[in-house]
Each structure stands twice: as structure tokens, then as C-alpha cells.
């Protein structure tokens, strides 16, 4: 640190302007040019194809923001209202676009505010590169102002993290960061850059993206013998069943997956994050798995003879009680992450690898078939579910509206083309169950971590990631109040996000559990809300609140046709429960319809 050429942040501004032209118009020469760490960072982002950054400035990241001032035309920085909002926006962006989200935050509280989003991105395999400022290297460990040990705090919730204390490391470290975040099973990467490194001038020789780290194997090798064994099991199967997850979407293997499903004729059910990998109305798409999934897929998991899991990780919300999960079945597990194989469910044949590569190999070996009788079983269960659950939810005769009918109306208007961003709780399960997805990358939700407050900022990010698509955020009255400050981000950026608040005046999912399992002892789930429409108006976002069913179609129409963002609050039944339900500790076949 002592010998580094450190200049004061303000002083480099003029210098920066001068080198701007050199940097962007000419390639750095062999001998290199002198730039600051901050400039090297921003140049790296441009080469990596970054167009949008979600961030919030602060003391320890000021040199980067000073450099950013001159990159306004190339990098669109969105000023969020809270760093958690920033990182959720980054996640939404990554999920809708398939690109890597980029987030800036300052040291100390700025960085700690990222932790929830990092944990969310880690468990949901979302590619992110987060840049945090850090105090000067010579102050590390001195309890300096806004110093926190960000590297150690974020280690369990990042795929990789690294602290830069010398500007010369920046090009290589940023290259590694993007490579690690995007490749293999994606995940969040955090780079903590001390202030001196941001300011430090060094001899910059250009930026080379990374494509190899010797200790890092993003993809296991594909082993044909297991593909062969898997195909044999599938070809002999009488009642095969496919479970697919987000791995299909992350691997951009939607076409390969569809080809496999259609040739093999095997019914396929999805995890929450796998929704949309094939269209909702595909004849072989038999519905959603898990705690609030569909009746047939849950019950028949325990009747199938071969279970083919593709890019999913057997979360406990999917499996229910593990020792009673698909014990009769032979299990074929396709996953890019070797640590997922046999983690929760023991596989008969593990198919390591990227499903974009393994699925076509498997498709080539499986027989073309139709499992008409077996598929009819799913349809039988669907009929029962429609009668006992779905009909009441989508076409209610009660005075008050249900969440399900809002989603149904929305489907009719968007025709399944919208990106649906949901928060966490009852509305999330209802939206995932009933929303129609014609396209991949259309369901953005916090699956693994279940982060309330995710939807509003994630919807902002999702819209930036897919600007030609309609983005509808569906949020509960509880979750909305966790990150509603991001209405300010919508106001300032002018982004077009449609917001539906399904207000049941309760923290509904917890209330549901208290009703079913705690003898209706409603402990702190009765939540009051502000006037959401007035709140939106304060941010100059038009809105409307409806209570009557007859107003629903016109209100949804008004929302969707409004130029720019719109907040629609729909008052729904207070004490409605999401069914079917696999109660905790029960087997998937013990799923309840009421």
C-alpha cells in the first residue's frame, strides 16, 4: 500500500476524461496505458457485455462512482433505494435476460444489505457479480468507519468472493468473477475492492475474459455409459415420470428438453423454478410438484417406476418426507453439479453434465413412445383437483374475490406472454399454480430462500432485462411493505412495471399454517397496510384499489394498457387457504385437497 501511486479521488476526474477517448477508441497498446482501478473495472464490465448496473453509492465506493460519471453513455446505472433492492433487481435482471446481473454497493452497511440477496441468488443459482467498496487497505481490521468483514460475512452465501487491495489485480479478478458466476451451476460472486485500489493508477494492458481456472471444473464430463444405462431404464419403464427444474432454463436447454419429452412421451412436472421451461399448456406438462403443487404429480411420484430428474435438486418442499419419497422408483438424475447427485435422493443412474449436452444424447437413445394409460392417470387426478380445489379458486361463487381468479383473468389478458414476478407466500403459490407461461424465463420468484420483499425490486430488474416484455409483479400485502421503497426506483428510472397487490390483510401463509396446525391461534399475522394507492401516488405512480369482482377485468385492462407503471390493489378473501397441500413431515402421496 505504501508504495502505490495513490491519488485523491477528485483529482482523477480530469485525468479520466483525458484517457476516456484513448480507452474506448484505441485498444490499449502492448506497453499499456495508465488507468485507475476504477476505470479498469468499468472497462471490464463493458467487455463482459454489461449494460445495466443496479447500485447505491457511498464513501468507500466513491472512486468507482466518480469513474462511472464518464461512462454514463455505455453503462446504465440504476439508482435503487436500498442495497437489498439493488441485488434483487440484479437477480430479476439475470433471471429474465439470462445474463449476469451486476450490483454496486459501498462498504459496511451497503455490503451487509446485500447478504439476503446473495443467499437468495446462491440457493437459486442466479449469476451475479457484486462489487462492494471497502475501506483503504491500511485500515483493514482497525474497525474503520463503515468497515465490515464483507468477505467472511458473505463466504457461505457466494459461489466465490475475493478482496482486491491492489489495482493491478482488477482485470484478472473481474474476468474470473464473470467466468465463475456464469459457468457451470451459476451463482453469485462478490468482489470487495479497497478504496486505495479503486484510486490507484497502474499500467493497464487491456482485458481478457477468463475461460479456464485450473482448480475449477464448471461441468463434469459426460459419460456415455450412464446415458446408455439411463436410456435402457427409460425404454423398459411402464410408468416413467419426468421432474424438471431450473437447470433446463439455466442451461438454455428448453428445446433439447422439449424434444426429449415429446419423443419419449413421458409426463413431466415442474418445480417452482422450472416453470415455463416448456409451456404450461403442453400436453405432456402435468403440472407443479411439491407442497402446493398439483395432485397427480405428487401422488404419482410414489407410483412411477422410473423417475427422471432433470436440473433439479430435490428440495424438501418438493420431496416431503424423504424416507417415503419414490422408494419404488429407479431414479435417473441429470445435474451439472456433482454435489447434487445423491444429496437428498439416491440415484440409480447419475447423469453428470450440462443437460444441454446430455439431453440430446439421451433423446437419441430413447424409444419413441406414448404412455397413454399412464398419462390418463394424471388426468384423472387433475379432474379430482379441478372439482375439489381449482374450480372454487378460479370461478368462485363467494362474495369476495380469490387470488386465483385474479391470476386467471390476468392470463386471459396477457395470453401467457408476460413475465410474472412473485413475492413469497400464498399469492406466490397461487400465481405459480395458475399463471400461464408460454415462454421460458417468465417466472421470476424467490424459490429456495423464500425472500419476502423480493418481487418489487426483482420486477424492476426483470423489466430492464427484457424490455420488450410485459412484467407483472404479483405481491402480497406483507411482502410489499418489506421493499416498497423501490417505488422510488420505478419513479426515477421511469421503468414500466405492473404491480398487483393481492391484499388479504393477513400474512396469509403463516396464518394458513396457524389455522391448520396451531388451532387457529393467529399469532402476529394480522397485518395492517397503508393506503397502497396513495403510497404509489406519492411516487407519481397511478393506481387503483378494487374490491368487487365486476371491476376486475377493467382494472386489469387499465393496468396493462397504462403507459408506464401501475399499481393495482385487489382486496381478496381474508381467510383462504392454498390447496392442495403436503403437510410438513408427510409423504407426497399424503397430499391433502382440503
Amino acid at each position, binding site marked *: 500500500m505504501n508504495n502505490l501511486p495513490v491519488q485523491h479521488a477528485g483529482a482523477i476526474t480530469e485525468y479520466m476524461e483525458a484517457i476516456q477517448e484513448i480507452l474506448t477508441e484505441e485498444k490499449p497498446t502492448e506497453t499499456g496505458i495508465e488507468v485507475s482501478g476504477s476505470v479498469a473495472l468499468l472497462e471490464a464490465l463493458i467487455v463482459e457485455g454489461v449494460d445495466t448496473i443496479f447500485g447505491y453509492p457511498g464513501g468507500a465506493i466513491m472512486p468507482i462512482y466518480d469513474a462511472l460519471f464518464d461512462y454514463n453513455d455505455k453503462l446504465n446505472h440504476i439508482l435503487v433505494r436500498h442495497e437489498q433492492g439493488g441485488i434483487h433487481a440484479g437477480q430479476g435482471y439475470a433471471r429474465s435476460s439470462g445474463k449476469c446481473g451486476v450490483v454496486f454497493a459501498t462498504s459496511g452497511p451497503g455490503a451487509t444489505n446485500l447478504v439476503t440477496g446473495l443467499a437468495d441468488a446462491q440457493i437459486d443459482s442466479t449469476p451475479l457479480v457484486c462489487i462492494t467498496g471497502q475501506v483503504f487497505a491500511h485500515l483493514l481490521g482497525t474497525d474503520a468507519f463503515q468497515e465490515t468483514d464483507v468477505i*467472511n460475512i458473505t463466504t457461505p452465501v457466494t459461489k*466465490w468472493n475475493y478482496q482486491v487491495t491492489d489495482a493491478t489485480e482488477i482485470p484478472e479478478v473481474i474476468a474470473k468473477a464473470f467466468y465463475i458466476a456464469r459457468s457451470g451451476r451459476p451463482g453469485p460472486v462478490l468482489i470487495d475492492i479497497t478504496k486505495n485500489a479503486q484510486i490507484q493508477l497502474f499500467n493497464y494492458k487491456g482485458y481478457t475474459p477468463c475461460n479456464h481456472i485450473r*482448480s475449477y471444473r464448471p461441468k*463434469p464430463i459426460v459419460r456415455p455409459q450412464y446415458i446408455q444405462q439411463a436410456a435402457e431404464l427409460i425404454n423398459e419403464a411402464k410408468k416413467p415420470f419426468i421432474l424438471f427444474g431450473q437447470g433446463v432454463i439455466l442451461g438454455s436447454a428448453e428445446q433439447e428438453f422439449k424434444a426429449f419429452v415429446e419423443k419419449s412421451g413421458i409426463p413431466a412436472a415442474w418445480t417452482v423454478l422450472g416453470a415455463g421451461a416448456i409451456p404450461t399448456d403442453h400436453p405432456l406438462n402435468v403440472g407443479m410438484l411439491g407442497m402446493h403443487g398439483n395432485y397427480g404429480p405428487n401422488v404419482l411420484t410414489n407410483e412411477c417406476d422410473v423417475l427422471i430428474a432433470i436440473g433439479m435438486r430435490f428440495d424438501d418442499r418438493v420431496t416431503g418426507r424423504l424416507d417415503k419419497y419414490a422408494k419404488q422408483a429407479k431414479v435417473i438424475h441429470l445435474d451439472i453439479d*456433482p454435489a447434487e447427485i445423491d444429496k437428498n435422493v439416491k440415484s440409480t443412474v447419475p447423469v453428470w453434465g450440462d443437460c444441454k449436452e446430455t439431453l440430446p444424447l439421451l433423446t437419441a437413445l430413447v424409444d419413441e413412445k406414448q404412455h397413454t394409460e399412464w398419462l390418463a392417470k394424471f388426468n384423472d387426478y387433475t379432474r379430482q383437483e379441478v372439482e375439489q380445489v381449482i374450480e372454487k379458486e378460479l370461478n368462485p361463487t363467494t362474495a369476495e374475490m380469490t387470488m386465483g381468479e385474479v391470476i386467471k383473468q390476468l392470463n386471459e389478458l396477457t395470453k401467457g406472454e408476460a413475465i410474472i414476478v412473485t413475492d413469497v407466500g400464498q399469492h406466490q403459490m397461487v400465481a405459480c399454480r395458475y399463471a400461464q407461461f408460454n415462454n421460458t424465463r417468465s417466472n421470476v420468484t424467490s424459490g429456495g430462500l423464500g425472500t419476502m420483499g423480493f418481487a418489487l425490486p426483482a420486477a424492476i430488474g426483470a423489466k430492464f432485462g427484457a424490455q420488450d416484455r410485459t412484467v407483472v409483479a404479483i405481491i402480497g400485502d406483507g411482502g410489499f411493505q418489506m421493499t416498497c421503497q423501490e417505488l422510488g426506483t420505478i419513479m426515477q428510472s421511469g421503468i414500466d412495471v405492473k404491480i398487483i397487490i393481492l391484499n388479504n390483510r393477513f400474512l396469509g401463509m403463516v396464518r394458513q399454517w396457524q389455522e391448520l396446525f396451531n388451532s387457529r391461534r393467529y399469532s402476529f399475522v394480522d397485518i395492517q397496510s397503508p393506503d397502497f394507492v396513495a403510497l404509489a401516488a406519492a411516487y407519481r405512480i397511478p393506481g387503483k384499489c378494487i374490491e368487487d369482482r365486476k371491476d376486475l377485468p377493467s382494472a386489469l385492462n387499465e393496468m396493462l394498457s397504462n403507459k408506464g407503471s401501475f399499481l393495482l390493489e385487489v382486496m381478496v378473501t381474508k381467510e383462504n387457504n392454498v390447496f392442495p397441500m403436503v403437510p410438513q413431515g408427510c409423504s407426497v402421496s399424503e397430499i391433502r385437497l382440503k
Partner: protein
Amino acid sequence: MTQDTEKQEFNITVYTENQIGLLNRIAIIFTRRKINIDSLNTSPSEIERIHRFNIVITESEDVVRKLTRQIEKQVEVLKCYYHTNADVIWQEMALYKVSTDVIAEKVSVERLLRENGARVVVLRKDYTVFETTGHREETDNLISILQPYGLIEFVRSARVAIIKDSDGFNRKLREFERLEPGEDVIENEYLNQGQKVFTM
């Protein structure tokens, strides 16, 4: 399967890059699951810039296998293996400080050194330091022998273990350096050792 769920000592060997923070990344894989690390040694390996960890835990093979996969998943980990005590040759080193006067007067030093495979590291007027290397019970044994004579200080190292059935890491490392490494490197051969992947 019963063997899989019985707890016993396992020796986990990890080859890594030399990277700040990696120790923490590896340690939290255990602490997150509330698993105690009985012994941990990390030191540069025979290959430049590659470190070797030796970690000892008491767990079932089923759990150890999953932990090993989680460790190998870390970006800076090249390779991770696990072995039972029977699969490795292992040693721990211990140092014992005692008063020279007491030892010279009351103990048959020669017998003590012979019977315990110990040697004198330092011999001063005021104190003597013995060293012995062996399994836990061997180093423990010398403690109980010296305790009556006023053992002043004792320290024991972590376990280091050599894998009986191993060809070393040099050749593997060269494979890692390549953009498209061969199958044995990329494959987690430790994963299903002895059970050939097919388990049902």
C-alpha cells in the same frame, strides 16, 4: 448400507490453491452442519503453490461423501478425497517439556526414550524437551508416563496422513492445467469407490 451410516474416523485430504479465505470456506462446510473438526492440518504440498489439507472428523460415510463433494465444489479446491483409518498411514507429533533436574534424578531416561520411541530435542539445565511421533494413544502414553514427574508443557500437532492407495498428485495436476482435462481428473472417482455408481 448399515456401514454407510455408522460413525467412524475419516481422513479427508484436500488439494487446493494457496488462497486467503479458503480455509474458512472449507471450515464452514463442517460448521454449517454442526460437525466438529477433530484435527486439521494444512501445509504446502510437494507441488509448488498447491496446499494440502488433512482433516479428521468422526462421521458416517454417507455424510462424509456429501461433505467431500461440497468441498470439491469450491472454486479453489482441485481435489478432495476421503479415507478410513485403515486406508491411510498417519502420524501425529508431540512435544513434552519437563524439568531436567527431575528427569535426571528420577527417571531412567534411556528406558523412557527407547520404550516410547521418543527423542530429546532440547536439553538445557532447567528443562528438557522430548519429541515423539505416533498415533494418539502413543503420544498419550508418554503424557501419562511424564505426568508424575511434573510435565510442564505439552503440545500435539494435527494428524498428517499418507494415502496407501495413491499415485500422488503430480500427474493429476498436469491434467488440471489443461483446458480439457482427462476423465479421471474431472470424474469424482472417490464418489462411488467400491460400489461402481450402481447402488440399487
